[in-house]
Each structure stands twice: as structure tokens, then as C-alpha cells.
């Protein structure tokens, strides 16, 4: 008979799971889920048509879980590079609290469950779009683009931009071109947001061998690209007020937010991407930009639905 005592709990012991429910919740990437639930809700509120409150809440819940499922699949596949990056090394899989197979099974079960739930609660077009979103994030972005091209987040950003389209489809059973404007806003917002982060975490990405733009093309090129995308995003952010999706008040707010976004990109350009404070400022402001823009849309949508104006 042999005894092995005092093994460190962070070392995985075969057959003994150290995971708590909180670890599984972390696999869902709660902060990303917040953005998804928010933008999908905006898509639902802005869409013409109606749905009973309970089915709408269940649909939103399903979209949120679907986003979480893609996060779990991402953490399963990326455990090797997450282990090398300071920002991600304490995640449940690289830290050993959740076994890779458990994360994979968790992600698959939630993916199938969330798509089925959305189909039952809303319609199968919305469910199909959610399935495509999960596939795009987990397979196209995580397994293919992320490790192979510096354009990873440009194309991969489509996954993060789809929730308002899914939300729109929940109410209408169709993909309205108005919802594609919401898609475009998030799609164009993603690169400057993540490139600002990549400038700050360049060493992390280099160690993990992830070809982010600053590592491949340099900080100066990244600074230019951040400005170009900001210049395109700013006017696109105003478009909802020109297509009847939002009021001129929204247009003024979006124009102001867009002007600040461009202004925030300028010091990054002037320093050729070396000014860390400027990159940090851009990263933080880009979150504010998207939040305020969609919050304005949400408020206008709710006001319109309640018939206050």
C-alpha cells in the first residue's frame, strides 16, 4: 500500500476534479457575455414586431448561453497559449482546475442546448444564426484565424458582431438590413479595440506566438490601422439615425462619440504606437464608445415601443 500526500491542489490529479461551479461560470467568459446580451437586446428592441415577454427573455438567455458556450470552446482549444500569457494563465483550463475534456464537453452541451432552446423559444432562423455565430467564433476564429493571420480579429470580429442580428431575427424571423448596420458598427469597432489591447500586451502575444498585428507588422502600422478603422467607424456609427432606426438625437450623440474616438487614435499615431497611455486610453474609450452608442439605441427603442414620443 502506498500513500502520496500533500500534492498541490493546482496540480491536476487524475480522476479528481478540483472545479467549482464558479470555474465553469468563468469558462463562459462572463464579460464577453455581458456585451453579447446587451447588443442582442438592442437588436431585439430595435426590430419591428413583437414577442411575449417570457419567450423574449428565454431567447435572450439562449443567446447569452450560446455566447458562453463559444467562450468555453475557445478556452478549451486555447489552453496552451492561455498558459503562456499573463492575462489568461489563471483561466480554469490552463490553471488545471477544469480538465480540457470537461471544458470541451461543457462547451458542446451548452452550444447544442442554447441553439435548441432558441429554436423552441423563438424561431429556427435565429437558432441557425446562433449556431453559425458559435461555429464562427470557435472554429473559424479560434481554431483557424487566431494562430494563422494578423487579420484574425478583423475577420473573427464577425462573431462578436452577430448578436444584434440574432436578436433582430428573434423578433422578425428575418435578417433585416437595418440589423446589418448594427453588425457593421460592432464589426468595425472590434479591430481598433483589440489592436489597442494588442499594443499593450505585445509581449504576451509574442510569448504565446499569436500573430497579432503589432507583433507581425509593428506598432507603427497598427497605429495607422487603428486610425483608419476609427475614421470608418465614426460615420458608420451615425448611420442608424439616417435610416430611420434612430432619431437625430442619437445621430448627434454618435457623431460626438465618433469624433472623440478619432481624437483618441491620434496620439497613438503620433507616437507610432509606442505611447502605452494612449493605447490604454483608446482601449478604455472604445468600450465606452460601444456601450454608450448601444445604450442610446436601447433607450430610443424602448421609448418608441412605449409610445412616449
Amino acid at each position, binding site marked *: *500500500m*502506498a*500513500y*502520496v*500526500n*500533500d*500534492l*498541490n*491542489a493546482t496540480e491536476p*490529479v487524475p*480522476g*479528481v*476534479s*478540483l*472545479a*467549482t*461551479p464558479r470555474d*465553469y461560470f468563468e469558462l463562459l467568459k462572463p464579460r464577453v457575455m455581458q456585451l453579447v446580451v446587451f447588443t442582442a437586446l438592442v437588436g431585439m428592441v430595435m426590430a419591428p414586431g413583437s414577442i*411575449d415577454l*417570457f*419567450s423574449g427573455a*428565454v431567447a435572450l438567455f439562449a443567446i447569452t448561453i450560446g455566447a458562453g458556450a463559444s467562450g468555453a470552446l475557445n478556452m478549451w482549444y486555447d489552453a496552451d497559449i492561455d498558459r503562456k500569457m499573463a492575462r489568461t494563465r489563471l483561466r480554469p483550463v490552463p490553471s488545471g482546475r477544469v480538465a480540457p475534456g470537461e471544458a470541451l464537453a461543457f462547451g458542446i452541451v451548452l452550444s447544442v442546448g442554447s441553439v435548441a*432552446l432558441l429554436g*423552441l*423559444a423563438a424561431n429556427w432562423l435565429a437558432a441557425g444564426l446562433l449556431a453559425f455565430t458559435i461555429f464562427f467564433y470557435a472554429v473559424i476564429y479560434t481554431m483557424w484565424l487566431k494562430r494563422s493571420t494578423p487579420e484574425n480579429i478583423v475577420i473573427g470580429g464577425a462573431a462578436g458582431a452577430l448578436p444584434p442580428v440574432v436578436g433582430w431575427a428573434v423578433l422578425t424571423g428575418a435578417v433585416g438590413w437595418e440589423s446589418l448596420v448594427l453588425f457593421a458598427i460592432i464589426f468595425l469597432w472590434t479591430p481598433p479595440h483589440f489592436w489597442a489591447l494588442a499594443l499593450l500586451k505585445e509581449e504576451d502575444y509574442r510569448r504565446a506566438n499569436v500573430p497579432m498585428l503589432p507583433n507581425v507588422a509593428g506598432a507603427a502600422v497598427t497605429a495607422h490601422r487603428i486610425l483608419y478603422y476609427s475614421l470608418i467607424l465614426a460615420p458608420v456609427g451615425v448611420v442608424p439615425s439616417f435610416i430611420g432606426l434612430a432619431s437625430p438625437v442619437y445621430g448627434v450623440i454618435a457623431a460626438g462619440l465618433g469624433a472623440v474616438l478619432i481624437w483618441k487614435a491620434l496620439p497613438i499615431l503620433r507616437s507610432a504606437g509606442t505611447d502605452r497611455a494612449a493605447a490604454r486610453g483608446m482601449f478604455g474609450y472604445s468600450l465606452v464608445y460601444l456601450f454608450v452608442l448601444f445604450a442610446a439605441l436601447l433607450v430610443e427603442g424602448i421609448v418608441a415601443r412605449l409610445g412616449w414620443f
Partner: protein
Amino acid sequence: MAVEQVAMSSPDERITLTDDQRRRRRSRSIAIAVILAGLVVLFYVITMVKLASTAVDPSL
């Protein structure tokens, strides 16, 4: 945190869980039970809502 692993010389190898591991397993079990119960309620209510809307509008 200590893990006491007892390896038997016989084919009947066993792992004795520590209190912490037992507590974590219990919390996972409770979470799974709560989620399953929630799903049962959720699917029941969805079914009722769909049935009710069909009853109101027989064309659906």
C-alpha cells in the same frame, strides 16, 4: 490543500477525497441539480406559452 491518494496494490485502486475535494464535488452536484430543475421548469413554461398562443390563434 492536501490530496490523500491511496494506491492499493490490488486492482481495486481507490482515491480518498479530502474534505475540500468533497466540498467542491458537492457544490458541483448541487449546481447541476439546480440547473436541471431550472431547465425542467423552463421547458414546461415554454411549452405552456406556445400552447396558449396556439390556442388563442388556431392558425399558428
